[in-house]
């Protein structure tokens, strides 16, 4: 499968999913004179469906999916997991603890930096950005256990 064909199929499926969801959510289509909330999404989904079909039809000569180069996927996955952790933990553990743990994982585990460098960077980044934004700029950042 070429990259164009895979992406064309994905876009077409997404368009169909939008049409189906608009129907399932019972969004009124309205009339031409008074278009409803489903009118524009349906119009766009049809445009996307058409584009997806055309991309599939014209995508025979594109590079294959494997040749697109996914070699950095382990690193990517690690960063995605860290971001997901931050999103989950930010309002539970508080800003400083969450960011310190996230930075420590990225530097210590993913980048294999030394213990001292990892500790200093993680604590410095968490405390420094907290001081700048929460204390100086008065942006309310979430606090966790023990007011951290």
């Amino acid at each position: 499968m070429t990259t164009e064909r895979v992406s064309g199929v994905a876009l077409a499926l997404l368009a169909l999913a939008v049409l189906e969801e608009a129907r399932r959510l019972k969004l009124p289509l309205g009339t031409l004179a008074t278009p409803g909330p489903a009118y524009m999404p349906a119009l766009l989904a049809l445009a996307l469906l058409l584009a997806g079909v055309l991309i599939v039809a014209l995508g025979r000569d594109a590079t294959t999916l494997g040749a697109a180069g996914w070699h950095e996927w382990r690193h990517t996955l690690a960063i995605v997991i860290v971001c997901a952790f931050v999103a989950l933990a930010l309002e539970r553990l508080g800003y400083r603890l969450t960011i310190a743990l996230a930075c420590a994982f990225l530097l210590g585990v993913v980048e294999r930096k030394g213990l001292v460098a990892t500790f200093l960077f993680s604590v410095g980044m968490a405390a420094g950005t907290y001081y700048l934004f929460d204390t100086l700029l008065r942006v309310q950042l979430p606090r966790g256990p023990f007011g951290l």
Partner: protein
Amino acid sequence: MLETLANLGLGFSVALSPPILFYAFVGCVVGTLVGVLPGVGPLAGISLLLPATFGLDATRAIVMLAGIYYGAMYGGSTTSILMRIPGEAASVMTCIDGYAMARKGRGGAALAIAAVGSYIAGTVSVVGLMFLAPPLAAFALRFGPPEYLALLLLGLFVLAYMSSGSMLKSLAMASFGLLLGMVGIDQMSGYFRFAYGVVELGDGLGVVPVAVGLFGVAEILATAGQATPPQVVKPRLRELLPSRQEWRESAAPIGRGTVLGFLIGILPGSAHIISSFVSYAVEKRMSKHPEQFGQGAVAGVAGPESANNSATSGAMVPMLALGVPSGPIPAVMLAAMMVHGVSPGPLLIQQQPELFWGFIASMYVGNVVLLILNLPLVGLFVNILRVPYPYLYPAILVFSILGVYAVNGSVVDVWIMLIMGVLGWVLRKLSFETAPVVLGVVLAPMIELSLRQSLAMSDGHYAIFLQRPIAAVLLGVGLLLVLLNLYSFVRRGLDWRARLALAEKGEET
């Protein structure tokens, strides 16, 4: 004319008073910092600092917030050029050639050209704001929903046509972006669309998490794991000055970007973003060497940077003269003015001339402050490149998360940023451009509203778009672009865009 100059004199007497000068300076410094920090754009910066102005009088508060706005537009170019991460959404186009210049060792020159271009555009556009605001605002007012829709669609067609890849893929991405913009409460009926019970999605997907995800996080995901991470350029001091050739090549784009940015700025919409997209497209089209775009063309930095700064002043026209915000940032500015008891509109100039003209004069002063701040500090910003990438990318990630979270104080935005980051990484692998997605998200509410209003006006007849001359001409130009693309496809000849795409692929492999 004489009256305007007399009023400007009054404005300078206000703007040059030490307290106002101080707050303009603070606003510019903070704005530059906000712009430099990836993920923290002017919208977030102004929102973050709005509570800090509550203790100030109206003039000081507005001058400081305006300083943050145009300071961020200046500073936004820095991370775009040095790290290919837009400091704010309008710097997206600067990423392309600015970063390419940095990779060639011309990062310092690109920063200097961006700073000078921004200064010229900022100063000239304030003159425009002063003298041309009333007639230009009146012209923009002639646009009804059909003309407005045609203009917005033309913007998408121009962007798709000018992209180096396939126009079909760019239009597919624009449609995808517009679909993303459909999430949230329908403005006209109040229906919740595709929100699945997530209350935070009621206002739709924010532009900040989408842009930071697609550009910032996707870049980190793509580069952090590379065997050879982004090259750390260590320019010497003399390399920070643009060459005579680079100055020559950037002069006309700065001029065009200034005019274009101001004109687009007065139209409603996220003008500073659109202006940089259009300016880039125009420069690419007008260039004798369009194949150099994407490879480090000076015009690709000078044009968009001038345009987005010029659009900043342009956006003030409808806000100050009519009390109508032309985008999310002017909307926040408008809210800030109302918090301070100022009601922008036609009566503002008559009732509070010292505030209006003081604000205008402070923009001149602010531009000088920014030039003085930015040029000598270019070397300081370049030093960011010297930080080893394993330390740099976690820091960028933290600032991206912080910037996205701070806008609404919601982790939902952090999730959106993450999803967009992964999507941006995949789209890059599949050779899709992500800029049309961002533009689609920005334009979606405006396009939908214009379409539905137009159809309501015409009782459901699409012929309204052909019956109104301005709308018909704008749509005709859009159709022409599609036909031109189709023509080159049928001939199977390689026009400059196809050659550029091949060149880009050749560089990657």
